[in-house]
């Protein structure tokens, strides 16, 4: 007589595919997953506490380090919250510039997500390197804009800190021309490949009702054909002046999530072209008379959210009238999108564990903060 018993394995925090220092306590029955318990906190840096003793501008440098593959989007979300709190009227050119930067960052983030999907599927880094190669060109643009590639600190209350240099615009054109080709290449590796389609389609299906109830947002939600994009539904900055598609997929499986990301990256390129048409010369930030270096907002609170690359990225700021926020809360999409991790994984095989996990596209810097 033979008996079987479940086996519990700790995956992470030191594991090559956990996108950082994530830890999962997974119980297997053979190769099948029967229970998952995520364990957080290995990258907890207390950003929210640190923010309470820094001025509003200084907190900006902390937001760079939360989701470090989409710093520009973090900057944007934080600055929107500050502007809402202080009732700052932003300069139009600054807003267009930060929209361009944010959409470039979205492309970069989606490239990373897609590259890591195929890496998790077992390709030995080839697609990842193709994706990263294209991302490097985008980071070069960021270096032109603000002198840093990852920790940008580019935005300021009411706009951006400095206008783009002259050499930025031709370089941007070149990169924008290249991005669709790179996406085609990735898609050829991804969506046509029978191994990938047979491994990702029909795995980890989440129902739209469940996802909305679990506060899941972003590409994950749109892969379940829920047309919820804050750029469209609640346009911040100048997104109301821009036409763009929201790619939707109905199957809500791992493949759909990545298909949506690639299509969104394509849409971002179109958005940037539209921004380039509308951008006009002018100041990129309000004068120091309107927005001083040390902001002292009226006591009150403000919640501003943007459509980040991972989902709804929100900042909740409470002011007590001093130069530092009384409370700074980050609505981190990476953390909240993990809510349904157990539902996604239970019943699938070990091979699909990290694929489903990677399809959430989480970033440990944002999960733990």
């Amino acid at each position, binding site marked *: 007589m033979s008996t079987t018993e479940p086996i519990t394995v700790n995956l992470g925090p030191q*594991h090559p595919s956990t996108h950082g220092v994530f830890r999962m306590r997974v119980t297997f029955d053979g190769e099948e997953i029967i229970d998952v318990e995520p364990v957080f906190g290995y990258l907890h840096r207390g950003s929210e506490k640190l923010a309470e003793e820094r001025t509003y501008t200084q907190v900006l440098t902390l937001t760079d380090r939360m989701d470090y593959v989409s710093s520009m989007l973090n900057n944007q979300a934080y600055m929107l919250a500050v502007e809402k709190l202080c009732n700052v009227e932003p300069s139009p050119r600054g807003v267009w510039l930060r929209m361009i930067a944010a959409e470039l960052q979205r492309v970069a983030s989606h490239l990373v997500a897609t590259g890591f999907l195929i890496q998790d*599927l077992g390709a030995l880094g080839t697609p990842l390197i193709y994706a990263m190669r294209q991302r490097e060109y985008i980071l070069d643009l960021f270096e032109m804009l603000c002198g840093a590639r990852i920790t940008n600190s580019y935005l300021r209350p009411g706009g951006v800190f400095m206008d783009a240099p002259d050499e930025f615009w031709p370089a941007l054109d070149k990169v924008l021309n290249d991005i669709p080709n790179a996406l085609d290449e990735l898609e050829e590796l991804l969506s046509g490949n029978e191994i990938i389609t047979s491994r990702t389609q*029909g795995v980890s299906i989440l129902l739209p009702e469940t996802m909305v109830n679990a506060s899941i947002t972003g590409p994950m939600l749109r892969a379940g054909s829920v047309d919820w994009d804050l750029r469209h539904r609640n346009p911040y900055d100048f997104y109301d002046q821009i036409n763009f598609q929201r790619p939707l997929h109905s199957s809500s499986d791992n493949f759909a999530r990545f298909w949506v990301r690639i299509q969104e990256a394509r849409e971002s390129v179109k958005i940037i072209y539209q921004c380039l048409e509308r951008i006009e010369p002018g100041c990129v930030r309000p004068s120091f008379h309107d927005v001083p270096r040390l902001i002292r907002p009226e006591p009150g609170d403000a919640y501003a959210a943007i459509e980040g690359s991972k989902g709804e990225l929100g900042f909740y700021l409470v002011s007590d009238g001093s130069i530092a926020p009384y409370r700074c809360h980050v609505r981190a999409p990476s953390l909240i999108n993990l809510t349904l991790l157990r539902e996604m994984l239970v019943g699938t095989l070990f091979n699909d564990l990290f694929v489903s996990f990677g399809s959430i596209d989480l970033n440990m810097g944002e999960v733990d903060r």
Partner: protein
Amino acid sequence: MTDFLYENVIFRLIYCNLSGSSDKCVNEYGYVQGIFPAGFEWLAFLLAGFLLAFIFINGILGAVILSIWGERRLYGRFQNRLGPNRWGPWGLFSSVADAIKVMFKEDVVPSDADRLLFNIAPILMVFPVFMIFSVIPMGIGTFVVDLNVGLLFILSVTSMSGLAVVIAAWASGNRIAIFSGLRAVAVLISYEIPMALSLVGVLMFAGTLSLGGIVEQQKIPFILLQPLGFFVFFLASLAEINRTPFDLTEAESELGAGYLNDYSSMKFGIFFLAEFAATIGSSAIITTVFLSGWKGPDILPSQFWFLLKLVIVLIAIVWVRMSWPRLRIDQILELAWKGLFELTLINIVATAILVTIWPNPTMGEIWIMAGINWLVAIPSVIVVGKVLRRKDNKTIQAGRDNEPYPVGTETLAPSLVNKVGEK
């Protein structure tokens, strides 16, 4: 003195120079005077055998070092980068440096490990890999031994590597390693059957199990006569050597390094060596059995043609590894039992019919046979592929949602809206 050793060029050279008197050491240049006096032929035999093995094993090690460098350069180029180029000309010494580094690392044995098995496993792993090479003819007269059951020998010896992986995994006392070991057993055992059956067609054509004989029987390369056999054997050997898309055992993104997780220092080095040697070994088998081995135009020595074909197969393996992701375990086993197994049966039946029709084919008839085999191969691959895909389509349908989630279908009454909040 057995004859099969005597036909070996290297062995013969060493033996005749050592042995005192032997009537067999008369070559076209006349009688060779040996170093040893008469009566010490046994010593010459032993020494010659030992030297042959020494040259042979060190040759494999050198080839492994070179192939690691070559693979890394190729990985680099496939990934649009350079690959190692710092240490020595074109980075040739990179893997030498790696080997030295591996040797000087600390040798850690985990406290939960079964010490004896933990230490035996690397030896068990590398042993059969070297044995494979002993029967492969690398050129005219360049082989260690030409067994008349060479193919069977290879098939039986390669099964040992599965045992080594399981022992390594079990002895590590590590749960992730055990996953790797269990996967290895499942994959290796499953793929041995299509692997063995895919060679049956070759045997029918060649009429011999000796690898030297198979090479000599190939009037045209067997890849043309046996497309299905080649296809199945190539995939099966990818599975046997744990290469993508069948690298479940070492699945980097899931298991870290699988059964190698707890190995360090030279034990890890031996596993690594065995893995690359196995890659070379399986490409050598493919070259010998399907690509007509050392045969080629006479302008260059036969060894060169063998090496050229070997390198081409190696590049093909690297290319596949760089391009394709991994299959899931159920898909891999399904492919073995529901796909490749059936394909080999089709191949055997088709080949058997052809061999019965033309027992002693002329050159023209061989080409006709090749054409018929290709006509059988392509539709059967497509049909089997379609059959395997059907199940996937079903699961996709299950996930579809009928009604879209309502978003923005209603609006809030204007009296309830916080007007001041608007821009």
